[in-house]
């Protein structure tokens, strides 16, 4: 994360924690990320519908196992 001028140590700590959280989300298995995307869709849909935009969160069957690359 880039250094921020004029930010108190407490706030810098909060920003660092947020960055760590984003990095942790990036490391999640793909199916878990997809579940997060659907949660984001549900949250965003409320706001977007209030603005008159028609959106539809995905309706997918629940699942539990993990994705993995078979080659890199």
């Amino acid at each position, binding site marked *: 994360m880039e250094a921020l001028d004029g930010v108190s140590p407490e706030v810098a700590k909060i920003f660092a924690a947020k960055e760590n959280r984003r990095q942790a989300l990036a490391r999640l298995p793909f199916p878990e990320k997809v579940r997060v995307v659907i949660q984001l869709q549900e949250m965003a849909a409320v706001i977007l519908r209030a603005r008159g935009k028609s959106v539809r969160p*995905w309706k997918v069957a629940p699942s539990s196992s993990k994705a993995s690359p078979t080659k890199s």
Partner: protein
Amino acid sequence: MKRTLQTLNELEREGVFPRYAIGGAMAATFYVEPLLTFDLDVFILLQPKTTGLISLTAIYEALRARGYREENQCVLIEGVPVQFLPAYNSLVEEALNQAQEILYEDVPARVLRSEHLVAICLQTGRSKDRERVRILREQANLDMNFLAAVLKRYELEEKWKLWTE
């Protein structure tokens, strides 16, 4: 999304299209933090017709026969709006041909390489593409040698410098 991918695999096996790979925000999400999107971009290789034109008609017909319906620019497959995008230039064709094989739960699928996603974003050039390049740079562990070769091949080095310096 598992059932959606199973359906795409069936279409590929049946020859409705020769190859597909996930692109767009969902492909980026494979490499970085979850990104908000409401559709699943699926790039496909299509055989040009004798007229030289490419058509999605066969795909839509195959999906209609399975009971899936079109919705705006997408087809709703097992609860997921899928946007089919024919490979529209040589960069996207290369990206499709070199897409990464993954397993989504136990279902095989393909996702465009992160370096190709960066190149496609640079080529497309919208503000959301610029933001996606930033996130991919930060989180995707890009193979910089591979990326440099792609950028050179498709004359995107200047755009990369402009967006990243």
